[in-house]
């Protein structure tokens, strides 16, 4: 696939923001964009998977744990780690820190409300 070659050669990785709450999603996208990353959005895990299947340029997934739908952010993270091992994962939650074993390896957890500085640090670490 020609276009995928172009994407993977891109120096700056694309970030997929998965957040069910529109305002928070908008704000988060704003933040990611300001930090200099191309950004994609998904309102739940199913949509996120659909996007990931067509967009091999996405290298970082930033997902909320608490989401309605067929799976929450943690299950999405596990699935992503399984199907696209190179993709980096950042999970966030307002419900406190999830149990360690439920977070996939190499994934990062950030509590809500998010510290913008920590988000930017995390992105630059992965990007």
């Amino acid at each position: 696939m020609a276009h995928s070659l172009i994407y993977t050669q891109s120096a700056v990785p694309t970030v997929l923001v998965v957040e069910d709450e529109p305002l928070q999603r908008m704000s988060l996208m704003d933040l990611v964009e300001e930090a200099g990353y191309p950004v994609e959005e998904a309102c739940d895990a199913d949509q996120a998977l659909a996007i990931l299947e067509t967009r091999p340029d996405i290298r970082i997934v930033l997902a909320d744990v608490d989401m309605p739908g067929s799976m929450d952010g943690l299950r999405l993270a596990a699935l992503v780690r399984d199907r696209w091992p190179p993709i980096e994962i950042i999970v966030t939650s307002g419900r406190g820190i999830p149990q360690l074993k439920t977070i996939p390896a190499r994934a990062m957890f950030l509590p809500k409300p998010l510290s913008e500085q920590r988000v930017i640090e995390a992105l630059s670490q992965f990007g």
Partner: protein
Amino acid sequence: MVDNSARAVGLLAYDILDTPPERGYDDLVLLARQICATPIATMGLIDAHRQWFKAKTGTTVCESALEEAICRLVVEEDGPVEIEDLTCDPRTAANPNVLGGPKVRFYSGVPLRTPFGTIGALAVIDTVPRPGGLTTAQREALEKFSSLVVDLLELRRRSSALDDSQKRWRSLFSNMDEGYYLARVVRDETGRICDWLYQEVNPAWERHVGIGPDQVLGQTYGALFSVDEPEWVDLVTRTMESDRPVSFLQRLQSTGRWYDGTFYPVGQDYFSATFREVTKQIAAEQRQAGLIALGDVLRDERDIALMISKAMEVIGTAFSADRATYGEIDHDIETITVSEGWALPGMPPIKGIYRFDDYGKLRPTLLAGDPLVITDTLTDIRTRDDSEAWLSLRARGVINVPVREDGRNVALMLVHFADPHEWTSEEIHWLHNAADRIELAIARRRADELQSMINGEIAHRLRNTLAMVQAVARMTLRHSLSKEEADRFHERLHSLGRAHDLLHSDDRRAAVLGDLVGNILGDASVLERCRISGPVIRLGTRAAMSTALLIHEMTTNACKHGALSLPDGIVTVEWLIEKTVSGSDLVLLWRESHGPSVIAPTRKGFGARLISFGLIGTGGVSLRYEQEGLSASFRADIEKIMRT
């Protein structure tokens, strides 16, 4: 003159007057007669009123008046008296026995000298005079016989004294409350004690052991109780080997009774034991200890299911029962959902749903709210037709105590014995009390669980709300605020969120100061350049919020203008508790060093104002801009910090 009364005391000591003839004395009298070659020989005892013959030969007279008794002369002389012709002696010439009756003519008597005085005489008598009297050999023999008579008398006295003392001991053992027995140990072929044979038991034995004395004597312990209980054999072995009394407080497994007592070595292979049955006292002590253990479980165990199963173990142990468990009942008391609870090994599992009607006519009792108390399910009128069902649970002595909630029976506490059990009112009362306490503990746990769920929900919503505020602010202010101003806003908001995280993750709804400071410094990525130390202080909700904002402002300033703006700069955060006149203050010291030289800022922004509020918004702030760097101290009443 001889003291009559002293003689009487001597005679009393032997308690011999008017006793039947005895062979020993008879033989001696006979020997005296033969050796002295006289037709008559007597052993006469003199008391205050008469002479009485314990032994005699050649005469049928049993006793005589004192005046007629020639033996009296021997006693009065306290020495041998020999009269060759009684008719010629003024002391005896007028004696009726000389003048008439047997018409005796010769008399030779020797005194019976006892440790209690002279009490009579051994005499040989002839009806013809004997000039020259007895030969020396005959006289010596008579003396020896008299000594023998006294020896016999002494022997008799001593053995009867022993009898008396034995009688006294015997009556003590038969009348005492404690059980008593005497036994001889039985040894196996290697010489080890393996059993014992009951030789003697007292009447109280039956009351303490429950077996009649007639079934005990000549039986061995092993045969009687037909169980192997090495601990009892060990006790007896210890008694015999140490040759010392060994006390015990132990349970007889076969009957389940407790005994308190002592084994005494008796000598050879014999031992005795005194003991008392203390089953009731032990049971009461166990229940008392159980009550305390139950209190611990109900207070400390947080998980309801675990708490109930532990409580059941405490109850089962306190009662020495075979099973203790708990079951929730439906509204109409038709079924019960029983949890596994606690049971001795070997009891069938019980977890499951049961219909009361399968186990007898139990519902009327339970519907009335009464405890179901059954001594034996095989004989109780309510359960005997369904005894098969009970036997499959190995439950004979059974109690079901209702656990009430809002005045309604919601559960039953079940205690089972594999054998019949007589429930005492103390036991029933105890179980009622336990049921009440369990119910209270469950209610409290449920309330706690609900509270913690609500708290979790509140915390979640609060964090989401803060996240929303953050998002709204970002969208609203992104063009009207500089990036720096916007960042400060977000970071302040984030510090508040941090304080909330700590408050809601803690059981006591408090934030630990060390964690709060550490988290905020960590969020600013400067934690490794800070030294934090101080005791564990729990901040109340308001104090946590204001302290979070304060530490955040201090951190931001240090990063921008203070020590943390240079690579070598460090910050020391320390706190301690200081006694004051009215109470105690928390003093938090913030010291920057190895940073740039600092001067007091001229403009007072919002950040500076936040700092001036101090730990709880009431001031107590002192800032010193020194050569080395900023040095700040914040002080507030520790009570207010923890309570608000």
